């Protein structure tokens, strides 16, 4: 079998493209869950981001403004969820699922006039000298800005959660909202903000699909990425850095199996297609086998509504 035509560099470039939407959505959801809210509407916020980013990018001819539009779109739609769960105290699981359905339908409506249109292309970063380096240039210095941005975002989230007072307060809301409340913090408002941040990130992830990975708008085009992002958060045990690991591993296995097939290697694609899901399940099983460890990681108030009774 001729492996020489299998270019690792090209594969890694594809891998990053497949992983970035998951990464963006997952890091946003991580912050939401750290604040004690379980938002299952990631898929819905992503598709809203995908369509609103697409619409803005086409109308302004600027992919960058498209990304801004996507973040705003995702954040706005997440406010519906935030209002319902934080102030009307609706069930988070049900509201999250409803948000996904709502998002998919609304996106289809919004995008109906945008089928078959090609969006402006996102320029890749070109650094004089660096981008032309063999291998390293293509590997490290010639991606689109979103990819660098997504990695910077992971760092920023890590720093915020672990090194700032505001991050500590947010985590306090997730671990023990009664305590946070008794210290005078407005739990609902903090969670509202976290949910909007999660919505903006999911929106960006969706726009990465519609503007970069598959530059087009098609109904339902995120095709379940939001659910994978949710799984990746658990897989990462709510640790920002592991989100990168999870997302890139998922993207990597997807791309690897497609590339091997294109190369003509007889592998069972069915099993490889399953692999990322199986790995996630295995990790979940291993993690939950040690109750102490699992409970250390999961925010203690995850999914619980908070109502200040006094």
């Amino acid at each position: 079998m001729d492996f020489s035509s299998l270019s690792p560099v090209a594969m890694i470039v594809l891998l990053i493209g497949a992983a970035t939407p998951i990464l963006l959505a997952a890091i946003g959801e991580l912050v939401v869950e750290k604040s004690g809210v379980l938002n299952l509407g990631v898929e819905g916020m992503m598709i809203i981001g995908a369509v609103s980013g697409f619409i803005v990018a086409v109308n302004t001819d600027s992919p960058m403004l498209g990304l801004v539009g996507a973040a705003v779109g995702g954040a706005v739609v997440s406010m519906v969820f935030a209002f319902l769960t934080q102030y009307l105290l609706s069930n988070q699981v049900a509201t999250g699922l409803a948000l996904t359905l709502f998002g998919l339908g609304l996106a289809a409506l919004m995008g109906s006039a945008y089928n078959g249109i090609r969006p402006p292309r996102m320029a890749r970063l070109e650094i004089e000298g660096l981008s032309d380096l063999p291998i390293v240039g293509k590997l490290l210095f010639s991606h689109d800005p979103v990819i660098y941005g997504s990695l910077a975002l992971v760092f920023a989230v890590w720093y915020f959660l672990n090194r700032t007072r505001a991050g500590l307060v947010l985590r306090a809301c997730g671990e023990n909202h009664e305590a946070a409340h008794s210290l005078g913090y407005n739990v609902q408002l903090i969670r509202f903000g976290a949910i909007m941040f999660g919505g903006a990130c999911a929106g960006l992830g969706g726009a990465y699909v519609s503007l970069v990975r598959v530059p087009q708008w098609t109904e339902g085009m995120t095709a379940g990425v939001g659910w994978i992002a949710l799984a990746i958060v658990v897989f990462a045990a709510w640790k920002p850095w592991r989100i990168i690991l999870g997302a890139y591993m998922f993207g990597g296995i997807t791309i690897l199996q497609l590339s091997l097939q294109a190369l003509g290697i007889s592998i069972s694609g069915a099993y490889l297609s399953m692999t990322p899901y199986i790995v996630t399940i295995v990790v979940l099983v291993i993690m939950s086998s040690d109750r102490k460890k699992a409970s250390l990681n999961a925010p203690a108030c995850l999914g619980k509504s908070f109502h200040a009774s006094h």
Partner: protein
Amino acid sequence: MKFTKTLAAAAAMGLALAGGAIAGSHGAPVKAGFIYVGPIGDLGWTWTHNQGRLALEAEFGDMVETSYVESVPEGADAERVMSQMARSGVDIIFTTSFGYMDPTINVAEDFPDVRFEHATGYKRADNVSTYSARFYEGRYVIGEIAGAMTETNKIGYIASFPIPEVVRGINSAYLAAKSVNPDVEFKVVWVYTWFDPGKEADAANALIEQGVDVIMQHTDSPAAMTIAEEKGVYAFGQASDMSSFGPNAQLTGIIDNWGPYYIERVQAVMDGTWESTDTWDGVQEGMVGFAPFSDKLPDDVRARAEATIAALAAGELNPFTGPINKQDGSVWLAEGEVADDGTLAGLNFYVEGIEGELPN
């Protein structure tokens, strides 16, 4: 994911039922329901079935009432959606994906008075018809074009699931490409989904990375077409004209035309002449059509494609005419022998020359 899709289906069903109840108050029109595997905006497979549904409404006006549920997962969930639809008083239900085969048969047993029409399957009952189009005829034409247009002699094929429908298409396209270009090589990538633009795009990229310069697809979204346009390779529209996604990339496309069949079947319900049938129409009957040819096609390629289409339309050409060997070298069809529909319906092997193993 399944759960939400179910919810989506249930919610959509609720809407469809509400709509039906209001419209049902005047006269007694025939009610036709459709179960779709993807969103009607996929601009591919489901979109064309929905076009057929709209053709039905245009033809019969007030005499017909249609409803549909989109993005219904194949499997047990489909059964529930179908039952719900049947219970709502629908006269005829079109289930438009291969994976609905067993669910359709199961539900049909519970509702003997409702007629079912299952697309692309092979299981029938007294109240279950099957219908499909001979897409492999269309794939023969685009295979010929692909074989003539490739410069690297590598043709990429994005395949969904290893079912007879898809295997027929690969074999037919390969035989056609080989007939005009003996050096041609097929690279088949199975993505195990009908609709996932991201994955389809990744598959297209992976194939182009391997030197493929013409891409064929048996998945439903225009993602591969978009990538082909971007990378400067050729591709073919799937189920509908996708030239808006790839004005330079699209050479032609296979167009599914379900409208006439849907009209015929609903007419049969109105006349009380409906009975379980097995329909398999192709280019000849107009169920399989083609998108306009790209001006990138040289005259000789275009002329040959037109001649092939004419031969198919006249019923003079069968893509599966011997001599054809199976992949392992054993004889499938002897010289001049033509594959019968039964064999084609269950086709589960590659023909000789295609590399790689067919997943089972």
